[in-house]
């Protein structure tokens, strides 16, 4: 099943930031979002993830299929690495955190309190959470922040494996992950300010 955005507009605190976003993301493929800072990439991803409603247009094929990873990793510092992952595995009704620990080299850290990890290790833990969700569509917002070169390669391998298993990924990133991905530049899709005399003004 494809994830589709049809003439989608998204708004941040009520102000439209992007309009006319169209894409189709088929299983096995990745789509990389590019665009200058502040253009609305995060807003677009939050809308696709269902955290906020579209301003206009629609999204199809997102229902209960998306695993979202934002800037914040949602890690509890007083829980151990394994407890953090195990919690999300239980929430998403999957079992077995070992593949996720293996994929990001977190095995030796499994019993460490997550609060004692370095920024890059925390990020790896945050990304490992995607594997335990068991969801096919990954929506990732700047996933490589604070990762070193080796960890970025690790992440790219995981995404490649995910795509190979029929998953798909929508990634906002500025670095080249070496993935065979379509690039969607949202820089040209900046929303125009509402025309004077538009429906809002009539309403007021």
């Amino acid at each position: 099943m494809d994830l589709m955005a049809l003439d989608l507009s998204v708004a941040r605190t009520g102000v439209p930031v992007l309009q006319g976003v169209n894409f189709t993301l088929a299983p096995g493929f990745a789509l990389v979002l590019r665009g200058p800072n502040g253009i609305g990439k995060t807003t677009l991803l939050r809308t696709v993830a269902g955290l906020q409603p579209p301003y206009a247009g629609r999204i199809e094929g997102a229902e209960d299929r998306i695993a979202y990873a934002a800037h914040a990793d949602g890690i509890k510092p007083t829980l151990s690495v394994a407890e953090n992952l195990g919690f999300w595995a239980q929430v998403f009704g999957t079992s077995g955190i070992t593949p996720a620990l293996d994929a990001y080299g977190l095995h030796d850290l499994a019993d460490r309190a997550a609060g004692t990890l370095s920024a890059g290790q925390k990020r790896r833990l945050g990304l490992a959470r995607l594997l335990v969700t068991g969801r096919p569509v990954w929506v990732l917002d700047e996933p490589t922040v604070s990762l070193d070169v080796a960890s970025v390669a690790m992440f790219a391998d995981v995404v490649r494996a995910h795509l190979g298993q029929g998953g798909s990924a929508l990634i906002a990133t500025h670095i080249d992950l070496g993935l065979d991905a379509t690039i969607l530049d949202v820089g040209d899709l900046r929303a125009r300010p509402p025309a004077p005399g538009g429906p809002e003004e009539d309403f007021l």
Partner: protein
Amino acid sequence: MIALLSRDLILSFRAGGGFGLALAFFLIVTVMVPFSVGPQSSLLATIAPGVLWLGALLACLLSLDRLLALDWEDGSLDLLATAPLPLEMVVSVKAFAHWITTGLPLVFAAPLLGVLLNLPAPGYQWLVISLLVGTPALSVIGTFGAALTVGLKRGGLLMSLLVLPLYVPTLIFGAEVARRGALEMELATPLVMLGGITAACIALMPFASAAVLRINLR
């Protein structure tokens, strides 16, 4: 659901989780009352049910700002909102965890503090029963307040202002049950009202909390 409950309980018992803070606050407030109103035991016996109820209510309020704010700050709330659990269930479970870590200890501590305030002997049983019936409403209403103010800087005080008026019915009927119990009066009416308020809050408040949380997450 069980996972979320056990996670919240573990987090609250581990270092920095804040378990026991509300209980200690309840203790301090109650101990300070005789200092402020004087040591006449008859006066203390008269005000004991009301003071204990007010103390429990304030102690409950104290721990509310952590209820959703921590999950908001570290991003888990966003992730929970995209998880298969309905948000109504998430807020209900978090309110239940709050009650277990805050309301329930207060229920058990109240009789001990009743001794300090010279609570008449028949009152103990009804004090415990009224708190047991009433404190779940405090947690559920408090979760609504926490959902309203999540994401606001310095939202704690604003939340107190929003939540305290909503606590008034529970306080009136809860303290009335304890007072009538202490005086060995008939207390079925306030007890039924208290139970009714709690039941209605548990049934309806999660929907309101989830709705405001969805808006706050946008």
